């Protein structure tokens, strides 16, 4: 019966030793006690002796490699033509069942709102490539759950020399937004002019009552939009499958330009606040955006949005819809003093009449409920 010669443990602290010599060849006869090779640790070199007389029938390790203590180096047989015993079944620890998706594939399935059995696997396991291939084949028209760009990459570099620059997080976010709008939304745009006087008076009165240094006008208009969304759930919705998905909370997106960076800040659960709570929270978030101190939760998950370019005196701007939203209000004041309220909307969710109606209501403050405020 064949016997095996193992890599010895030289001290308790080394689980591997280096095989530095193996002085036998297949077929060679060795005597019991003959030195057949040497192993080394960083402290010592130790001879390996044959435990019995026999013929070398198998060499299982290479010189100058690290070998595990206890692993087989050499097989000795009783005769030169004995065969090396079949290796004992090696314990394999539970791996992933064959056919199961890789973790990356699972992440992608979740992102696209797919299940594993919808997507065919090219190999044993469902891979990220399988999922991407499936999504691309469907024209990317799956219910995307977390707003990552789909099929926006052009992997071949242009022929003109240049350098690739990684995108900042806000730039990546813009790519996501544009890609979603291109691939999923069916955007329309409507605008109307309005008389600024009632809003200016209301904002001035509010500022006086709350002793504010800066005009709260835009925050108050955004709050009015939150109130309107509360009245009309379709404004705060998106399109999933063949149905309208009305959100259970109103997360107000509000654009803030901080230096070079354009943030779409998100005030979550805005509908749980009151007017002054909203204005304060909005002020806080704008201040922190200016200081680049927002946390990720404040930069994602908008369900309806408001954007003003009044400070740049443009006559019109047509915003791109943030992913999974149906309405973004665009406010502008042109150089000749025209005040404009516009809206980009997802025509799958809203029609023009609903949008015009909303803009008309937004063009002046709500009738103030003084009594309610006085009781606070």
């Amino acid at each position, binding site marked *: 019966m064949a016997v095996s010669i193992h890599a010895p443990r030289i001290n308790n602290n080394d689980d591997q030793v280096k095989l530095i010599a193996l002085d036998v060849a297949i077929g060679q006869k060795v005597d019991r006690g003959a030195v057949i090779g040497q192993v080394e640790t*960083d402290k010592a070199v130790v001879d390996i002796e044959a435990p019995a007389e026999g013929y070398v029938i198998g060499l299982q390790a290479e010189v100058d490699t690290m070998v595990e203590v206890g692993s087989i180096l050499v097989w000795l047989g009783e005769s030169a033509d004995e065969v090396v015993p079949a290796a004992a079944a090696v314990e394999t620890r539970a791996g992933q069942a064959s056919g199961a998706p*890789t973790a990356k*594939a699972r992440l992608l399935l979740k992102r696209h709102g797919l299940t594993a059995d919808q997507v065919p696997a090219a190999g044993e396991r469902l891979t990220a490539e399988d999922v991407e291939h499936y999504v691309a084949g469907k024209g990317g028209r799956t219910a995307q759950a977390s707003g990552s760009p789909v099929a926006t990459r052009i992997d071949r570099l242009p022929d003109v020399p240049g350098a690739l620059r990684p995108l900042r997080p806000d730039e990546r976010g813009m790519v996501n937004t544009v890609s979603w709008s291109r691939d999923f939304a069916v955007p329309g745009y409507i605008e109307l002019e309005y008389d600024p006087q009632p809003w200016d008076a209301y904002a001035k009165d509010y500022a006086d009552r709350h002793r504010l240094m800066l005009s709260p006008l835009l925050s108050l208009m955004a709050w009015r939009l939150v109130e309107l969304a509360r009245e009309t759930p379709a404004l705060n919705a998106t399109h999933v499958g063949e149905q309208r998905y009305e959100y259970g909370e109103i997360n107000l997106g509000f654009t803030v330009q901080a230096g070079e960076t354009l943030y779409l800040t998100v005030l979550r659960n805005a509908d749980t606040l009151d007017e002054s709570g909203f204005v304060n929270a909005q002020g806080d978030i704008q201040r922190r955006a200016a200081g680049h101190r927002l946390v990720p939760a404040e930069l994602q998950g908008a369900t309806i949005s408001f954007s003003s370019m009044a400070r740049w005196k443009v006559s019109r701007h047509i915003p791109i819809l943030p992913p999974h939203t149906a309405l973004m209000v665009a406010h502008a004041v042109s150089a000749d003093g025209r005040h404009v309220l516009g809206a980009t909307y997802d025509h799958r969710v809203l029609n023009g009449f609903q949008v015009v109606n909303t803009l008309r209501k937004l063009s002046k403050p709500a009738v103030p409920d003084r009594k309610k405020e006085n009781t606070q």
Partner: protein
Amino acid sequence: MLFPIPGVERNEHGKPLIGLDDASLYAFGHLLRSTEQLILDLFSRGLLSGTTHTCIGQELCQMAVVRALDHEDDAVLSNHRNHGHYMTYSGDFLGLVAEVMGRKAGVCGGYGGSQHIAYRHFHSNGIQAGMTGIGAGLALARKRKDSPGIVTIMVGDGTLGEGLLYESMNLASIWNCRVLFVVENNGIAQTTYTSETLGGSIEARGQAFGLQTWRLNDADPEFSASVARVVAQVRESGRAGMLVIDTRRLGPHSKGDDLRADDEKAAIAARDPLAAIGRRLADSEREAIEARNTVFLARIEAEALASPEASFDAQRLHTFSPVSTTRIGSLQPAKASNVRLAINQALRTLLGGDERVLLIGEDLHEPYGGAFKVSAGLSGDFAGRVISTPISEAGITGASIGLALDGERPILEIMFADFLTLCMDQLYNHAVKFPGMFEDVKVPLLIRTPAGGRRGYGPTHSQNPENLFVSVPGLTVLFGSHRHNVGQLLVDAVQRWPNPTVFLEHKLLYGEAQDPADYELVAASPEDQGADLFPTLRRGADAPDVTLLSFGGMLPVVERAAKQLEEQEELAVEIVAPALLAPLPRGTLLDALLDRPRIVVVEESHHEFGVSAEILAMLAEAGFTGQVLRVGLAPVPIASARSLEREQIPDEQMIVASVLDLI
């Protein structure tokens, strides 16, 4: 502020010069007693901060040894009952009274109170026997500088029950240095008589350790002169000694806890050695002394009352001294054939570059060469500076603190990190308290220790105890890996980081090649203490699906798990590996982690309440919204059998499975 004491001259350091004549002894002894009575009176009037232990009845006992210390390097390490020692050492009556009152004029600005006083070479602390090892270290430091200074260590008979005292007596004996252990034997603890708590004889304890031993009685008329001869003999012999003084406590232990019978108290009063000296004086002389002491103390009381309440000029939020710019010797190479050699080379650089560097620990000498042979070859090349010690982890930690306090740079090796618990009192109550209380005091002590499992060493030789030590305020905990430049971490920790530091080395990494591979430095946030010197590393995807945060011996395991997740699960994996665990580089880690989608902290230690908990709490407080998970050791002892140990300590399969569960 030192006020002139009537009838008493001072030396150049302000120490009172007290004669051996009856009038001088009575004058100072009476002043001690009157001050203690003033303190008790202030206590009754609600003007004291915390507790106090007076030496009423033991004045001569407390005076005699300190009085005889006449070299400027002489040190006094005292205990909870320290007022007599302190006043005799410093002559600073206002400093003491204001300190116990918690006033700004206190000798420690109100930080120490009655029990924790530091002034020149005087230190006291409320831990019984806690400073005795430190005393042995201070004495060794004096010996290394050829100073004849004596370190006196004051203990009561109650302290004879503490084991560290005996470790310290042994160290002082084998190191042949000038330590005088003074046992003030008043026969009673707080309320329990020593006869019920002490086996054997007190002097025999000293004799057993080879100390020259004396026993004196403070009621002996020649007592103070005899004590002076003992001190002179310790100085002359250059050896350690033990002096037992029989004395009696006239007052309570602290306040309101004197339960002794009236006739016993009457007998103690009749024995009162201070009163006996007073009776030897003419009435008129005695009354004149008492009258002038009364006037002096009235002034002290008025000054103390006039001093404002103690307040912080600026409250410190940490106690770490800044990085020093001094670097001695060349930089350590980033790559090394293994971590053991990298550390050995760093120790060689440190010893070669600075005479103050000492290696202290068990079995450091050739041919053994220290735990895991990390200090191999050093004892021969640096004779006298590689010190193999008795098996006394607490004692040698204390001694190392003493050496560090006196300007040496001790590097202490604890054979297994599991044994650090024996050093805990020395770290928690002493090493961090000196720099913690006094901004200008530094304790540049470094403790190296091998940690970790997967060796089959079992429950008490396999642990990663960093979770205990990161919570000690003011203690630095470093745990490098084979991806760090471990040698440079060690050199910088000793040369440029003058703070008490625990330097963990994982046993498994000693044989690993030291190689930064594809890791890069994470930019250190300027607000993080030490983060630049002890960097955090990272490798892997810039937009990872999962971030594995790990350190020390867990890193090779985490790398294998990452490989599996990348190759088999197609995940983008990032590894973040700090070396500095405390003070935690919070800003640095937040900058690196806050926008990550999933963070898994992997550690080998018992991780409940540990490093991972702190890191994840920090992320939660900062508004982290991703997913988190901890992988570590359950709160159970580590088994010896390798098969059992494998099931307990996280391996790559456990990490992979945890990540997959999370996703």
